[in-house]
Each structure stands twice: as C-alpha cells, then as structure tokens.
C-alpha cells in the first residue's frame, strides 16, 4: 500500500513535468520533457560517454570531503560533548562557521588553495562536517543517565564506559548526521565546481546553463538528485546493519 503511494507520487510527478513541458511551457529553451532528459542521459552515458569524467570528478571530491568530515566531525563532536572546557572554547567558532553561508567561503578558499582538488574537497568538507559534528555532539549529550549509571554501577572505567555505553548509544545520531551531510555535501560539490572548475557535475550544469543547453542542464541536475537518493539509501542500509535492534521496532 505505502509502496504504491510512492510509485504513484513518482510517476505522477514525471507525468506532470511532461505535461508542463510539452503542453504548457512549450519552449525547449526553458523546460524540456523528462523523456528528452532521459534520452540525453542515455546518450551521455552510453553513446558519447562524456558524462563519466564529470561524474568521476564530482564523486571523487564528494567522497573525500565526506570522509574527512566524518573523521574530523565525529571525534570533535565527542570531545565537545564530553569536555565542558573544550565545549566552551570551540562553541563560538563552531556557531560562526556553521551559520556563515558556505558559498561566502568559496572564493577565499579558491584564492588560498587554488583551483584544484584540495580547495574543492575543503568546500565539500565544510558543508558536511557540521551536521556530522552537531549530531555526534548531541548523540553523546543525550545518552540516558540511566544507561550511564548502569555502566557506573559495574564500575566500568572511563574508556569502557565510552566504548560500551556512550558510543553505541550515539550511533543512531551519528548516522542521522551522515545522512544530513549527504545533501549538504552535494551542495558543496555544486558550489566548488561552480567556481573555475574544468570538470564535474557542477561545472556541467554551470556550462550548460551558460550555453542554454537545457537537456544537458537537466541531466546534470538529475544526476545530482540520483546521487543524493543513492547516498541516502546507502546510509539507510548501513544504519539497518549497524542498529539491528531498531529494525524490528513496529513501524509507526
């Protein structure tokens, strides 16, 4: 039942798009039918094969940015949660960095690090790191006092208390942070490739927009959407594997 609602929603959305493009807007310089986008996508994947370098470039900076954000964000979130002095010390900077629009940093980073891989990865990293950090922080902060007391009643050392109680209790929050980071990371990819890149999906979209190549523009946007969905689903699978005790909870 719920699966069929999803299917109806997706199919209905595409039909609406098609009707709008062909019968309402009727101007291929503004909007093209999804059929045209799918054909163009097929062409770029299997005929001219010119999508791959862009896909590869974007995926590469995305994964590197996500990886570094996870490696930095999770421990930093933990440290801020567990150490009040570090928390007070870092909070003003974190708040400032988090609330500043990332796009404002992009030109500065490009100026400092040049138009190569490093600056793009840094822009993606800045997008991903905060949801991961903030979720890791809260995950560790909201661990039930009862669970901590259970550990303490068994006289677990600080290290064991962390490994056996605090860390597993935080895992669902960290994974939720990673899922939020997927969307922000892809935004980071688009921003990074907007400024002076020679390849990548962001560049593809930017260039197609400049040259009024609407089908290619939509292919680029669609690939972004598909990557986002795939990343989201992949993390859902990881979440189910990492938290088997939640899987069997009755769906609400």
């Amino acid at each position, binding site marked *: 039942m719920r699966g069929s609602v999803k299917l109806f929603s997706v199919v209905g959305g595409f039909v609406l798009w098609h009707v709008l493009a062909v019968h309402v807007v009727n101007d291929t310089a503004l909007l093209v039918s999804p059929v045209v986008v799918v054909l163009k996508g097929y062409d770029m994947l299997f005929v001219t094969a010119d999508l791959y370098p862009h896909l590869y470039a974007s995926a590469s900076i995305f994964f590197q940015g996500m990886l570094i954000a996870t490696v930095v964000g999770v421990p930093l979130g933990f440290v801020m949660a567990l150490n009040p002095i570090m928390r007070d010390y870092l909070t003003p900077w974190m708040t400032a960095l988090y609330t500043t629009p990332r796009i404002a940093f992009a030109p500065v980073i490009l100026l400092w690090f040049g138009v190569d891989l490093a600056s793009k990865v840094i822009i993606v990293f800045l997008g991903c790191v905060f949801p991961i950090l903030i979720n890791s922080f809260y995950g560790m902060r909201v661990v039930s006092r009862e669970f901590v007391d259970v550990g*303490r009643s068994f006289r677990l050392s600080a290290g064991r208390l962390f490994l056996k109680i605090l860390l*597993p*209790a935080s*895992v669902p929050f960290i994974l939720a942070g990673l899922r939020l980071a997927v969307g922000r990371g892809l935004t980071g990819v688009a921003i990074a490739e907007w400024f002076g890149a020679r390849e990548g999906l962001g560049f593809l979209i930017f260039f197609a927009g400049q040259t009024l190549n609407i089908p290619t523009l939509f292919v680029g946007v669609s690939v972004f959407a598909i990557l986002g969905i795939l990343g989201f689903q992949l993390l859902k699978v990881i979440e189910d594997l990492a*938290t088997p*005790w939640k899987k069997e909870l009755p769906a609400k």
Partner: protein
Amino acid sequence: MAASVLEVRNLTKEVPTGGGEPFVIFKDINLSVKEGEFVSIVGPSGCGKTTLLRVINGLLPPSGGQIFIDGKEQTGVDRELVMGFVFQGASLLPWRTSLKNVLLGVEGRKPSREAEETARRYLNLVGLSGFERHYPHQLSGGMQQRVNLARALVVDPRILLMDEPFAALDAQTRTFMQLELLRIWSETKKTVIFITHMISEAILLSDRVIVFSHRPGRVRSEFAVPLARPRNLDIKSDQRFVELENKVWKQIEEEVKAAAGFSQL
C-alpha cells in the same frame, strides 16, 4: 547473630540550591543490614529512597556520614563489585541482546567463554533460557526486569540494591515477579535492600521493613516481619501480615499528610 555486612551512619545528602539553603534529600540515616537479610524501605514519594540507594552504591557522593561494608569504611566506590544494582524501568541497553546485557558486568573481567557461561547460568536462573538472543524491546516488561535482575546478579555481588524494580509492571506480572524474586533470593542467599512504594510487596519479601519519613527522609520506624519462610501468597491473609500492613500504612499516611501540609505553608 550475624555481623552486619552493610552499615550506614548518619548518612546525609543535600544538593546546593543557587545561594540559598541547601536542599536536604535525606538526613542522618542510620541503617544496619545483616548478611543474607532482605530489607525493604518504604516511604512516601520523594522521600529520598532512590537517592539513598544511589549514594550507598557510590553513584552519588554523600554530603555527610559514613558507609561501612564488613566494618570497613568505604571511601570512593568499591572496585570489587560488592554491590549489584537493579534499576527501575527501562535500563536495559537496547542495542544489546539479553545475553549481552547480562554480560555487561563480567565481560573483560573473566575469560570470554567463562563470562558467557556465567551469563547463561543467570539467565537460566531468572527463567529466560531460550531468550538469549532477544533484544529488550522484544521482551515483555516482566521479562525485561528478569534480565535486569540477572544482569545485577551476574557479578555475584554480596549485596543487591533494588530500586523499585517492579514499579512499571502490571499487577499480575508484579505478583509473579515477587514470587520469582523470593525463589531467586532463596537460591542465591543475597543480602538485599529493596525500595518500594507497595507495602504488601515489602512485607511479602522482607525480613525487615523500614519506614521513611517525608522529605528530608529519615528512618521513622522499623518492623521485623514475623512470618516464616518459605513464603507464598497465602501469607497475605495471615492475621500478622494484615496487622503489619495496616500499621505501616498508618505511618505512611501520616507522613504523606505531613508532607502535603508542609508544602502548603
């Protein structure tokens, strides 16, 4: 007469309130529990029973007074796990199966095979053989509290501190769990301090019932339970059971009324 395994002298717990008088949770508690004795503490809500148990276990520091185990004063927490704590409500770790929850206290302290055997033995003792791989949410409330009890027993503590372990259970399950606890207690011979709101539960289970005053909690009175063991539900209709229940209830009623009067000032 057996020597007291746990003794509490003038134990006081207060928490600071920004600037003003500290908030006194309980004051000058004196308590002595003999080896193998089952002692219940009853009292009105908010009288500091749970906090007392936490202080005795070292989860909270006392503000004054002393705690002795086997006549030796406790400074800091006991590393030897003399005490096991049965928490109220949902304190099982949801990411661990029953077996792994029970293992928590012994893993790393014993070789893993031995630890697992011990954990299985205690799950069996509480009647949960066959549920080793179930997660807490897959168990009923009564079963969860059985796991909770097994988890505290697995380190073979001499003293078992039980903080209203059956409070969240329905009346029928609660009665069954009381009988189960009587059986497990007779098999394990632990010294037990049991906190409850339910007077009949305290009398059914205990050798001695201690009545707490309203906050700040003090020991108001003590009653030895003059009923032979092994016990079953029949003793609830025993004249002595009924009399004791009434006597304890009268005192708690007074305390509750005094507390309400106090809060209306």
